[in-house]
């Protein structure tokens, strides 16, 4: 009862505030529309919370999970002309099956993998599911168009000016409490529910108590799939349905924001927050006529709530935070082997191969290929920024491409609009990105792991639609053409090959710097902080300073990549710095491996290779299924594969020379046992 009282009070206060703040006030119909959109988002948000509690991940495939079955509903109604509720029932069964399949075939395979890896796997899964939508759409031919997709309740309506709330709107609003209530009853009053809750509190402990955690996890995914199906199926007649198009981060953020407000735990708070956010977003859009402002509102809500809430001190939450960390570092060559002649020879060989590859790329490829290959060192720089931030410091950023955008904007602005020096503009751009990263670093003092990831995603969404948009930020974003310079009055960087070599040189210098940083005291402290914050503090190290250094260095690298990217592209395009790009580079970093410089390079090579050097079905397979399979078999990323291959070679070398290397033998034993 007290909760209901607070909720009503919150509603009244929000509506009153909107009426007072917004010019012209907010009509009742817009509040109704906000409630409807909020209800649809709440269904998504509840599913996100359930999956988070079960697997401790942001499920980027959640919306697509519903979209597949909603497409089935839509196609069954508009194709064979099935009754809406019958189609809904079939889709419900399909959702249950799909949820179970996803859990058994994908999620369960990642049970032991770091949460980062599973999160990236869901990005690949979303692509696969989008393709599934396309296949369903192709298999069942619609006889009527999308706008004729009505339900038995579409003709019922309440007129609440300026919005006519049809039965579909009302169904979404009315079904929400029923669904959430049923879910609450299930979780709180049934033994299955108790098992789900126990499992979400601690998987291993629940398993020790005899709870079948695997089966429970499957059930959670089935429930989540049904919630997603309901959200998407109810959404279709209200908002519409776009078949075969992955639902973007913008929409996901509208569901994530309330889930974050509910701390990914509290379902009633999540639902209330979703409804309130729906009202606020619709009211602000109604008053301003600008859709992009909704993204800024979402960022403000997420950042505001996370900053004012109490810090995460519980052991359970700390465990969650650490489960987001991933660091399979490439170890140095064991001291026992360093003196062997083969080691410097192998190193020289690797160096010659690398130089040879760059020389080949710079001399034998076409200009177009050289242009695309230049993206590899640029993206590898972004990968390096992840190595520092996530690999070493254990901090997650899903908005790294927005930092790249900041570097690009500042460097491009200086060059194009102020005639600034190229190298100086690169440095200033990097510093600007580092400054923004520092602000995010300050946020990270209160928010970590999953929550920091969501905050940075919100930053990426808002940056893409607002801060890096030249129409709104002409003071920051270059208007003119960003030309590449002639270095030393003879090296024309407009030549694609010259620019490729230049970017490779910059990457090499950055890689050397990053490697040096890792072996320095600062690097060791950053890694130590990741592993045990309290122990590091006990040695008198400032956590604030150390974390900020990690963010600043990461931002610096991302900004440097941005500076090069804006010159590569000769300007800033509206569609270049989207949150989707941030998710792509995040996937790239995880696929490459966050533990080493070579991982960053391999990840960049994979991303650019798949995106630009494959076509048609191969590209589709590589992006969706390929990503999933790669992560399944190489959770440490391609860098870990390289690391293992090197260790295998070192083992052979050790055996040949009859040298006993304990660390390598330990690996050997582990491999044999496995």
């Amino acid at each position, binding site marked *: 009862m007290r909760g209901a009282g607070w909720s009503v009070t919150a509603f009244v206060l929000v509506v009153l505030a909107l009426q007072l703040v917004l010019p012209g006030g907010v*009509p009742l*119909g*817009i509040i109704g*529309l906000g409630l409807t*959109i909020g209800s649809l988002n709440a269904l998504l948000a509840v599913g996100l919370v359930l999956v988070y509690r079960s697997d401790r991940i942001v499920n980027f495939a959640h919306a697509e999970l519903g979209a597949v079955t909603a497409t089935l509903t839509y196609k069954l109604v508009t194709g064979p002309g099935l009754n809406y509720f019958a189609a809904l029932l079939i889709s419900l069964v399909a959702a249950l099956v799909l949820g179970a399949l996803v859990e058994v075939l994908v999620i369960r395979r990642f049970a032991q993998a770091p949460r980062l890896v599973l999160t990236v796997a869901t990005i690949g899964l979303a692509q696969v599911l989008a393709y599934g939508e*396309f296949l369903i759409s192709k298999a069942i031919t619609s006889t009527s168009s999308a*706008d004729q997709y009505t339900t038995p309740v579409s003709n019922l*309506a309440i007129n609440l*000016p300026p*919005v*006519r709330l*049809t039965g579909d709107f009302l169904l979404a609003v009315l079904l929400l409490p029923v669904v959430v209530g049923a879910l609450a009853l299930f979780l709180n009053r049934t033994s299955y529910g108790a098992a789900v809750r126990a499992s979400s509190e601690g998987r291993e402990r629940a398993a020790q108590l005899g709870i079948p955690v695997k089966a429970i996890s499957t059930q959670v995914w089935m429930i989540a799939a049904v919630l997603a199906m309901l959200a998407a199926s109810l959404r279709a007649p*209200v908002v*519409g349905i*776009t078949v*075969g198009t992955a*639902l*973007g981060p913008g*929409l996901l953020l509208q569901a994530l924001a309330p889930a974050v407000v509910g701390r990914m735990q509290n379902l009633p708070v999540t639902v209330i927050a979703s409804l309130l956010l729906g009202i606020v977003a619709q009211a602000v*859009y*109604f008053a301003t*006529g*600008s*859709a*992009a402002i909704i993204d800024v509102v979402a960022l403000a809500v997420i950042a505001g709530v996370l900053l004012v809430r109490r810090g995460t001190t519980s052991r359970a939450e700390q465990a969650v935070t650490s489960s987001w960390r991933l660091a399979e570092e490439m170890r140095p060559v064991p001291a026992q082997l360093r003196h062997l002649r083969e080691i410097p020879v192998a190193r020289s060989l690797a160096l010659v191969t690398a130089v040879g590859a760059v020389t080949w790329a710079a001399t034998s490829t076409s*200009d*177009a*290929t050289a*242009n*695309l290959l230049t*993206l590899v060192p640029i993206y590898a720089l972004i990968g390096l920024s992840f190595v520092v931030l996530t690999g070493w410091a254990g901090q997650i950023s899903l908005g790294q491409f927005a930092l790249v955008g900041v570097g690009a904007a500042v460097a491009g602005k200086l060059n*194009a609009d102020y005639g*600034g*020096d*190229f*190298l*100086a503009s690169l*440095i200033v751009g990097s510093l600007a990105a580092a400054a923004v990263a520092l602000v995010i670093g300050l946020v990270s003092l209160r928010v970590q792991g999953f929550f920091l990831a969501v905050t940075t995603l919100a930053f990426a969404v808002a940056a893409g*639609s607002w801060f890096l*948009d030249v*129409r709104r930020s002409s003071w920051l974003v270059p208007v*003119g*053409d960003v*030309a590449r*310079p*002639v*270095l*030393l*009055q003879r090296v024309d960087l407009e030549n*694609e090959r010259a620019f490729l070599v230049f970017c490779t040189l910059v990457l090499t210098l950055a890689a050397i*710097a990053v490697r*040096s940083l890792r072996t320095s*005291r600062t690097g060791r402290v950053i890694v130590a902080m990741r592993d045990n914050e309290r122990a590091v503090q006990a040695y008198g190290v400032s956590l604030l300073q150390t974390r900020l250094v990690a963010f600043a260095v990461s931002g610096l690298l991302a900004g440097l990549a941005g500076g090069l990217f804006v010159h590569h*592209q*000769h300007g800033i395009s*509206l*569609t*270049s710095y989207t949150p989707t790009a941030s998710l792509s580079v995040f996937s790239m970093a995880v696929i490459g491996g966050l533990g080493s410089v070579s991982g960053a390079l391999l990840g960049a090579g994979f991303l650019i290779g798949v*995106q*630009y050097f494959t076509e048609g079905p191969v590209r589709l397979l590589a992006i969706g299924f390929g990503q999933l399979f790669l992560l399944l078999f190489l959770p440490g990323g391609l860098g870990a594969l390289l690391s293992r291959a090197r260790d295998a070679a070192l083992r052979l070398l050790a055996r040949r020379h009859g040298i006993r290397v304990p660390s390598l033998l330990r690996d050997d034993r582990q491999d044999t046992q496995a």
Partner: protein
Amino acid sequence: MSVLMGFLRRYAPFLAAAAAVLMFVILVPSRPAVTPDSLALDGAQSSEQPGASIAGEGQAGPLPGAAASNAPGTVANGTTALATRGGAGPVPQAGGAPPPGAGDLPCSPRPVLAGCKPGWAGGSNGGATGHNVTADRVTVVWYVVYVDPALRSAQAAAGTAYSEEEIRGDVQALQSFLRKNVQLYGRKLDVVPYFGSHPVSDNAGLKAEAVEIDQKVKAFAVTAATMPVALSDELVRRKVLAWNTFQQPANYYASKAPYAWSVVGDADLLNASTAEYASKRLAGKKAQFGGADVQGKTRRFGLAYEGVISASAKDLIARMEAEGTPFVTTVEFGSELATAEQDSINAIAQFKAADVTTVICIGNVFAPLFLTKSADNQQYYPEWFVNAYLFQDAEEAARQYTPTQWEHAFGFTQLALRRNYKESRGYAASKDGDPSWEPTAGIALMFTSLSPIARGIEAAGPALQASTFQRGLFSLPALSGSPTETGSSYGSNGPGPYTGIDDFAEIWWNPTDTQTFDGKPGSYARTNGGRRIQLGQWPRTTPQVFS
């Protein structure tokens, strides 16, 4: 002191590196090399100066959007004019002399293309006179935009998806036609299809394609059904002529002169026409073409626009205000499909709340899809004013919009009356080029896109380069429009110097008409038999639409 020494000891390598970088930055000159000829190979303005006019060429035409000076019907058929000029023609604006060797021999008549084929005495054509031009070859690329499988499937359903073989066949046939009927001054014209492999949202991929088209294909000009902006930008940087970046603001083309061109009119022209039409024919009068809810109310205009084209939207808003018919509400929507769908409900609510009777929507082709669906849900039936933006005036798109809404759609188009493609000039040209090839329905658009480039190359004379191409194209007389042909002009003959079509036809949506170019129900009917109207000539009378 010890603190300082400690600091230095700890950070000395870093400080040394920073000092080295600083010295490098100071000592190594690395400013972009802007020289007079860095971009303007042919004396054109650099694209680094947005908004710059073509004043450097001394050819600044009338401001885009200004009233056109050429009345329709001035040159019904350019044959005589071209025959006397021999194609290259004197260039009054530029003051250039006719190219050597051109214009001395009689002009031979030709089919389909306007004018006649100028004679040429032969001899040297100057060799490599321009970027990617050689003594014996000039290449024009037909760029085919990449479409993802979902959209391709939809295209296939609409009958507008063609295989690579079909496109190659069409291109070959038109190449044969153009080689035969266009004076190329000893060069061979290669028309090459280029199949894009990156979606229009992938700027990096498109720019790399531009590099390949320039460096590997060696294109002098590139055209497409619609060219992505990122591709066009990079082509222009590389001094390759980029055709058909649709409906950009006029200063986009002017700032990239003489490299950026378009067959259809620029956004300023469409906006000027919208403002003129609205102020003369609609403003201050009762809405009579909408549903019962707006019928009889004094017209109030609302604008829905996609965020990415807000520059054009701002221009339209300003022009409407200047004409005394301001929008009572303007609504921006995003480009992400899922959120744009969601936004459409609120957008319609804003129009309803503001008592908007007449909605103008500018943005992607999907926007009316969402807006009309939401309007239908909301039982709001305004007048939908079509102003030729981004294919909303094409039947293939309009048939997807909610019929109960679009039956209230009227306005203007730049397209000519669409006939069966077998009656088109493209089909005739293809058959002339290769009688054995049966072209696809896409041949009409391909020909419309290629023909101005071919005419420009011919009019440039032997010394082909971007500036002579511009001079040549500007020197050609305006082609007057007819119901089945658009009127078009370049240079000072029309409103937009770098865009072709400069007239309009009044249209309204007839959902039941099956007498269409493809035999499918639903088409845009035309008033006055499809009479073409120039900017400044919209009458003040009530539109005779839906009659």
